[in-house]
C-alpha cells in the first residue's frame, strides 16, 4: 500500500539526508543528480513500485533501472529507507568491501542494473520488459535516464526499439536537470536548443524552447511533461503512464540538480563532489527547512472558486488550502465536500482540507472521498476516541492526518500519543471564522512552548501557520518552526497570485538563510560563515547571503 503525500515527502527528506551522509562519509560521489531525481524515486518507492525488501528476487516485483548510475547514492538511500538494508550502511558507500558500490551493482540485493557506463539502461529495460511479455507477467519496468546521457546514441536506438515492440510495460523518466559533468546540457549538447549566455533558468522557464518532448514523441512514445519535484505531478503521471497501452511512456521531468540545498542547486560543480563534514549539519538543517505555500481560496471570490483554483495553479501553489466552515463550529459557512469534489478535477495540487466543523468524525469520510490529500480536524471538537477513529480512516485511505488548535486552545494531552503519526499540525494564529484578520502576536510565544512538547513526543510532521500570515511576519513565523504557510488575503487577495507566492517564498528564504548562517556561526564562527557563503556561487545568492550575514553581525 502506498503512503500519503506527507509521508512520501518525509521519506524523500530522509533519503536526501542519507545522500549527504553517504557521500560525505565516502569523500566522493554524486549528490547533484541524486537530488534532482529525489522526488521521482521517492514517489516510486513509497507509492508505485511493487517490491519486497525481504525478498529482493521476488519474481513479480516491479523493476527499477537506474540508467544514470552515478546517482547511486539516491538509489541506495531510498533502498535504505524502504528497508533493504539498515540506514547506517550508507556510510559504507564507495568503500572497500561494501555492497554499496560507487555505481549501482547487482552485488547489492534489490539493485536491478549495474549502472555506470551511460546510455544503456533503456535497452536493458526493454529486455526486461520483453521477457515479462514472453512470460505473460504483469510487473512493470521503471527506468530513469539522465539528460546528459541522452547524448548517447544508444538511448535513441532503444527509443526506436521500445516503440517497435510496443513495450507498454515500461515507463521511462527523463531526469531533465539541464546539467551534465562539464556544464549545462544546452551548452555541451543541446536537447532543446543552444543556450547563449550562462543563465540556465532562462531555458527552463520558457516552455516554447523545449524540444525534448518532441524528440520522444517523434520516436513513437507517449510523452508526459511534468515538474519533477512535485510529488503530486509525478504520482498522476505514473498512473497515466501505466494506463497507457500499446506504446511506451516517457515522463519528462524538469528538475533542478542539487535540489533542496541552495548552494548545490543548478550548480554543475555538484555533479560529482561530496560535502565537507563541517557543512553537513548546516545542510541537514536546510533540508529540514523546506517549506510550502498554501493559498486559502476562501479569501477570494466565493462565487467562483473554480477560478480561484486556477489562480492557485498558475501561481504555482504547493497546496490549496480549503477552509470548510459549517456555521456552527465557527459562525461562518463556506462550502462542504460536494464543492471539493467539483473542484478536484481542476488540478493535481494537493488539497489541504481544513475542517472547521462540529463532529468531524461523522463527515471525514465524505472529505476523503471528495479527493482531499490531507484533512485537518480541530482539537476543540474531537477527543481521544473520535480523533483515533479519524486518524485510522485517514491513514487507511492514504490521506494525510492533520490536527489543529485555536489560539485559545492548548494542545490537549490526549493528543500526545498521536503526535508521531500526525502529518500536519495547524496552529491557528487568528480566531477561525473569517478571512482578513490580523496575526495574533502571542502565537510566537505559544509556538516556542509547543516546539518542546512536539519534540518530546517525536512529532515529525509539518507545522502549518494559518491566520494573518503576511510578508512582514512570515520570516518570524518560519523561525518559530512553521513550514507550511496559509495565505489568505496576502496571496489570494492579491491581483497577481504568482508574484504574491513568489514574494512569500523570497521572504521565507531570507529567514531560512539567516537561520543557516546562524547555525554556521554557532558551529564554526566567522570562518564557517564565510565558507558557507562562499559555497553559493550561482546567481545572486552569494551577495544576498553576505548582506544577511553582515546585518546579523556574523561577518
Amino acid at each position, binding site marked *: 500500500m502506498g503512503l500519503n503525500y506527507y509521508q512520501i515527502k518525509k521519506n524523500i527528506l530522509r533519503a536526501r539526508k542519507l545522500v549527504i551522509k553517504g557521500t560525505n562519509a565516502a569523500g566522493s560521489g554524486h549528490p547533484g543528480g541524486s537530488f534532482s531525481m529525489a522526488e521521482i524515486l521517492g514517489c516510486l518507492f513509497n507509492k508505485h513500485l511493487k517490491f519486497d525488501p525481504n525478498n529482493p528476487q521476488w519474481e513479480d516485483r516491479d523493476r527499477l533501472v537506474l540508467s544514470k548510475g552515478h546517482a547511486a547514492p539516491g538509489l541506495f538511500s531510498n533502498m535504505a529507507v524502504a528497508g533493504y538494508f539498515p540506514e547506517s550502511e550508507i556510510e559504507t558507500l564507495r568503500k572497500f568491501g561494501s555492497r554499496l558500490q560507487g555505481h549501482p551493482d547487482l552485488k547489492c540485493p534489490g539493485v536491478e542494473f549495474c549502472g555506470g*557506463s551511460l546510455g544503456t539502461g533503456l*535497452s536493458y529495460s526493454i*529486455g526486461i520488459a520483453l*521477457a515479462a511479455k514472453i512470460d505473460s507477467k504483469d510487473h512493470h519496468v521503471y527506468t530513469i535516464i539522465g539528460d546528459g546521457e541522452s547524448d548517447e546514441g544508444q538511448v535513441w536506438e*532503444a527509443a526506436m*526499439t521500445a516503440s517497435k515492440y510496443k513495450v507498454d510495460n515500461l515507463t521511462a523518466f527523463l531526469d531533465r536537470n539541464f546539467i551534465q559533468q562539464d556544464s549545462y546540457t544546452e551548452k555541451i549538447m543541446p536537447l532543446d536548443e543552444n543556450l547563449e549566455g550562462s543563465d540556465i533558468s532562462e531555458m527552463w522557464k520558457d516552455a516554447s524552447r523545449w524540444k525534448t518532448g518532441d524528440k520522444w514523441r517523434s520516436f513513437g512514445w507517449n510523452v508526459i511533461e511534468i515538474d519533477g519535484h512535485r510529488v503530486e505531478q509525478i504520482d498522476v503521471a505514473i498512473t497515466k503512464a501505466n494506463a497507457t497501452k500499446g506504446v511506451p511512456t516517457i515522463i519528462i521531468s524538469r528538475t533542478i540538480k542539487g535540489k533542496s540545498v541552495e548552494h548545490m542547486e543548478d550548480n554543475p560543480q555538484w555533479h560529482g563532489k561530496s560535502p565537507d563534514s563541517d557543512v553537513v549539519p548546516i545542510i541537514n538543517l536546510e533540508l529540514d527547512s523546506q517549506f510550502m505555500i498554501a493559498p486559502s481560496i476562501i479569501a477570494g471570490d466565493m462565487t467562483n472558486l473554480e477560478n480561484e483554483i486556477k489562480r492557485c495553479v498558475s501561481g504555482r501553489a504547493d497546496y490549496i488550502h480549503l477552509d470548510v466552515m459549517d456555521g456552527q463550529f465557527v459562525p461562518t459557512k463556506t462550502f462542504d465536500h460536494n464543492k471539493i469534489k467539483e473542484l478536484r478535477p481542476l488540478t493535481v495540487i494537493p488539497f489541504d482540507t481544513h475542517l472547521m466543523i462540529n463532529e468531524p468524525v461523522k463527515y471525514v469520510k465524505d472529505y476523503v472521498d471528495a479527493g482531499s490529500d490531507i484533512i485537518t480536524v480541530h482539537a476543540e471538537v474531537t477527543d481521544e476516541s473520535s480523533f483515533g477513529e479519524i486518524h485510522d480512516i485517514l491513514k487507511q485511505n492514504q490521506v494525510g492526518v492533520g490536527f489543529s488548535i485555536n489560539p485559545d486552545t492548548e494542545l490537549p494531552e490526549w493528543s500526545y500519543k498521536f503526535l508521531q503519526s500526525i502529518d500536519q499540525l495547524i496552529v491557528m494564529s487568528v480566531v477561525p471564522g473569517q478571512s482578513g484578520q490580523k496575526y495574533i502576536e502571542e502565537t510566537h510565544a505559544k509556538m516556542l512552548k509547543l516546539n518542546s512538547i512536539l519534540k518530546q513526543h517525536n512529532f515529525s510532521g509539518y507545522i502549518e501557520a494559518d491566520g494573518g500570515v503576511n510578508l512582514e511576519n512570515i520570516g518570524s513565523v518560519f523561525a518559530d518552526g512553521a513550514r507550511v504557510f496559509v495565505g489568505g488575503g496576502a496571496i489570494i487577495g492579491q491581483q497577481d497570485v504568482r508574484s504574491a507566492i513568489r514574494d512569500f517564498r523570497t521572504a521565507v528564504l531570507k529567514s531560512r538563510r539567516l537561520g543557516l548562517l546562524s547555525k554556521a556561526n554557532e558551529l564554526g564562527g566567522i570562518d564557517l560563515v564565510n565558507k558557507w557563503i562562499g559555497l553559493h556561487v550561482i546567481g545572486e545568492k552569494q551577495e544576498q547571503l553576505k548582506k544577511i550575514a553582515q546585518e546579523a553581525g556574523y561577518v
Partner: protein
Amino acid sequence: MTDMRSEYSKSLIQLGKENPNVVVLGADTTDSLKTSEFGKEFPNRFFNVGIAEANLVTMSAGLAVSGKISFASTYAIFLPGRAVDQIRNNIAYPSPPGKKGLNVKLVTSHGGLSVGPDGGSHQTIEDIAIMRVIPNFRVFIPADTVSVSKLTALMAREYGPFYMRMARSKTPLIHSDSQEFQIGKAITLRDGSDCTIAACGITVRMALEAAESLEQEGISCRVLDMFSIKPLDHEILEKAARETGCIVTTEEHNIVGGMGSAVAESVSESYPVPIKRIGAQDMFGESARDNEVPLLLEKHGITSFNIAKQVREIRSKKL
C-alpha cells in the same frame, strides 16, 4: 563442405523447442545468419533490433537478467568491436548472487580474413583479443559444423556469457558426430612427438594438411583443435610442450592478442618452449574474391605450406 550459419540456425530451433527460455536477437543480419528461421518458428522470442549493435547487446542482457537464455548474433566485425562497452558492462560485469555475468551468448559469423570481398573494413582480426580480456567471458572458435552444433547446445546448457565466432565460408568436416566438446578442453586430432600445431577455426584443416605432409618427411606432428580459447586447456599445452618441445600456433586473427598469444602466455608459465605464431601479421585485411581468399591468407602466411615451413624451422630452435 557444410555451412556454419545453417548449422547454428538449426541448433537454435532445436534449442527453442526444448527450452521456452531461449530467445534470439539479431541486428539486420538475420537472413544472412539464418537466425530469422528461429523467428519464423518462435516469433515472440525473436527480436530484430536493426543496425544497432549496442542496443542488441544490452537488450540481450536485460532479457537474460529476467531468466532468458539470450543468443545475440550479427557479423563478428560489428559485435565485439562496436559494442565492447556494452559487452563488458551489461553482460560480463553484472553478476547476480552466486553467478558470474549474465546468461548471454554472443555468436558471430564472418570472422577473420576469409570474409573475402567485403574487404578490410569487414575482416575482424581483433575479436579474440577483445573478448578474451573480458572477465567472465568464455571464447570459442569452432572448426566445423559439428563444432557449431555441439558448442551451441553446450552454451545453452551452461550458464554465463560466451562468445563464439564462426566463419563465413563453407567448411569441411573435421570432427565426427560423436566428438565430445568440453569447456576448456582442446581436442587432439592427431598425435605426434616432434612438434605441436595448435590451431583453431578454418586453420585446423590447414594444420592437419601440414601435419600430413610433414609425416612424409618423417616429422611427427601433434595437432590440437584449440576451439576453447578461454578457458584455455593449460594441461594439454603443458603436456605438448614437454612431449614435443615446440609449438606452432595458427589462427585467422592478429598474432597480437589472439589464440597464439594465449598459448604463449600459458606455456611460458608452465613449460617454456619455442613458439611460432601464425596469423594476421598485425596488418589489416583487404578485399579478395572468394577464389582469391587463399591468396589473402597466404599474404599473412596462413597456409598449410607455411605451417609446415614454420614447423621445420622451429624444430631447430628446440631447447
